[in-house]
């Protein structure tokens, strides 16, 4: 059968940044507003202050056929989570509508409602029920869940004494045994050790290959998306950029972003910045995304109209809020003040990307160390995104919620 199991029509979600995002209203503002409202009306001014509005999603349309497994991909802040939350009925859309045919279950987090004081057995029932399973259904699948999670011995231990690996395994196991007609999954595959991740992907494959179940799957892990999904939806800035066959959509997503191909900048001192970007080690094309902890390099190609002596190259990396995260300079990295004339490429080596997942922007400067004067200034010349990855031995991937940089490289008991 090929009727759409999910039909999204013109969905949009508006947030006003002044108020509802992140922070709750304070009673004081409400009271002040109430108290001053009549006066504002008297003075003829509009009663609401101009608030900054933000469309997290705008005019999103797509259809998913029954039995289809769709990967929803996009960069941080593209609106993936908002879309999943709308389809999971957690938040209401501002405009548009979506029709879902079948029982829906969503998995935006593993272990929602797990209580640390309760035992593994108790949490299986509690979490199963929160995810929408009937008690009878949980009882039927109980043994299967326990076996999948490999926690037989600790069933009657409070989960607060579980290792993080056991906790995550148990939580995923409960969720994996849901049998909805439409399953919405957010990034939960990126949990556990590599062995368990393989098991999860295997389980997801079993779930999706029955042909009965429709799955919407959000992930940053292109490998998992490729392995599981038949089609994809690529979200950018809150709208659907590409949709269709999964390979096409992934190809589009991994394509170097526009800013990496930005036209060159020429300063009034005749220095020309041809291009700059982040590359895979000895890779040919600039990358839009880099995995956390992977090696990469920053390459900057420039030339000068006339000989320019005693130059130094400075690169500054800013996070998405505009805070300076890191600065590096050619002098400190092993290239002495140089004379620039013909085209040269500078290569800064990054052994391992230690910036946490998130969006970053890079500015490039040329200056002279002895007078401190800036001779070329290219603000936000290119952007890149760091994608989450699980640290070896870790259980949950680091995300942008974990800060800006990883500053530690080991721990031992002494």
């Amino acid at each position, binding site marked *: 059968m090929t009727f759409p199991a999910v039909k999204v029509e013109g969905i949009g979600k508006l947030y006003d940044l002044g108020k509802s995002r992140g922070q709750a*209203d304070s009673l004081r503002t*409400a009271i002040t507003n109430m108290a001053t409202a009549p006066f504002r009306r008297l003075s003829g001014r509009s009663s609401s202050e101009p608030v900054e509005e933000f469309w997290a999603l705008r005019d999103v349309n797509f259809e998913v056929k029954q039995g289809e497994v769709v990967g929803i991909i996009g960069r941080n802040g593209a609106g993936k989570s908002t879309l999943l939350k709308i389809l999971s009925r957690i938040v209401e859309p501002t405009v548009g*509508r979506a029709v879902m*045919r*079948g029982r829906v279950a969503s998995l935006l987090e593993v272990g*929602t409602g797990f209580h640390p004081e309760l035992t593994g057995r*108790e949490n299986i029932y509690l979490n199963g029920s929160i995810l929408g399973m009937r008690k009878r259904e949980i009882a039927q699948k109980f043994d299967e869940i326990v076996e999948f999670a490999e926690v037989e011995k600790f069933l009657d231990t409070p989960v607060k004494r579980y290792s993080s690996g056991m906790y995550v395994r148990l939580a995923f196991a409960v969720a994996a045994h849901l049998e909805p007609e439409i399953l919405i999954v957010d990034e939960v595959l990126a949990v556990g050790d590599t062995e368990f991740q393989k098991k999860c992907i295997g389980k997801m494959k079993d779930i999706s290959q029955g042909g009965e179940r429709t799955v919407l799957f959000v992930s940053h892990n292109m490998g998992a998306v490729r392995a599981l999904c038949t089609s994809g939806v690529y979200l950018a800035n809150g709208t659907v950029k590409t949709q269709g066959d999964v390979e096409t959509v992934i190809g589009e997503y991994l394509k170097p972003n526009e800013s990496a191909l930005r036209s060159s900048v020429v300063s009034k001192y005749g220095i020309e910045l041809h291009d700059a970007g982040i590359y895979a080690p000895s890779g040919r094309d600039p990358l839009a995304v880099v995995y956390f902890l992977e090696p990469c390099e920053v390459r900057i190609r420039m030339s000068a109209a006339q000989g320019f002596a005693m130059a130094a190259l400075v690169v500054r990396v800013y996070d998405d809020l505009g805070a300076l995260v890191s600065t590096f300079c050619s002098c400190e990295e092993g290239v002495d003040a140089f004379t620039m004339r013909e085209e040269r490429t500078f290569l800064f080596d990054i052994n391992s990307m230690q910036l946490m997942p998130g969006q970053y922007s890079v500015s490039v400067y040329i200056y002279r160390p002895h007078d401190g004067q800036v001779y070329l200034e290219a603000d936000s010349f290119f952007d890149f995104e760091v994608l989450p990855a699980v640290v070896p031995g870790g259980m949950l991937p680091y995300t942008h919620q974990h800060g800006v940089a990883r500053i530690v490289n080991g721990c031992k008991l002494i």
Partner: protein
Amino acid sequence: MTSGRPEEAATEHADHHPAAVELVIRPRPGWIAIDWKELWTSRELLGFLVWRDVKVRYKQAVLGVMWAVLQPLFTMLIFTAIFGKFAKVPSDGVPYAAFVFAGLIPWTFFSNSVTQASQSLINQQSLLTKIYLPRILIPAASIGGALVDLAISFGIFAVILMYYGIVPGWGVLLVPVLLLVTVAATLGIGMALAAITVTYRDFRFVVPFMIQSWLYISPVIYPVSVIPKEWHWALAINPMSGLIEAYRSAFFGLPWDISSLCISIASSVVLLVFGLFYFRKTERRFADIA
């Protein structure tokens, strides 16, 4: 059922077997009706949430469920000593200990429920932001948990009645009705405060203070009879006032103040309806601001 094309409906049903639920997601402006069907299908979940609340509350305490017995017992002893013995607060001819305990049963239920329900949403934000479930269940579960303590208090009360040789009259048959009204009032206030606390975190501080003050306008430590008769109606707007007096009438065979009870029942119903609708109206924004 009667109109339309029966054949078509039948084939459609056969096509996508398990009851082919269709869910439409769209913005819903204004007041939102209560989805009774959904609440009924999630009754098991409510059961699990109540069970979790009760279990977790006493899990790491050495004395465990004993606290549900000790807490009201100690409160009663302190009140009896201070208000009964030293301050000589009248108690309508009933031994003060029994008198105050009869008031403490509904009061403790009310105050614990309201305090916990009002914090329930902000203490379990992941249930708002990571999953969909009928949100009303969350504060309702806190109240369900308090019902278990209430049952235990009734057990202690039976012992106290026996100690004083008090035999309740026929009026005790009305206690289930009074309980129902108590739960209704508590649900109404609990849900409204839970919803408002999500938006205005100030209520985390307001609620405990509010409950503390509420004790003084409820006839827990004193009988309504100490207040001039012409003010009884005003007192009864507080649902706990008419209800506590009614519990006492039921247990001790005291005369019933029907008009006060009616006012309290009416205000309980109003609070319940208001609480439910206010909750429903604000519910859609919970995940955005939590």
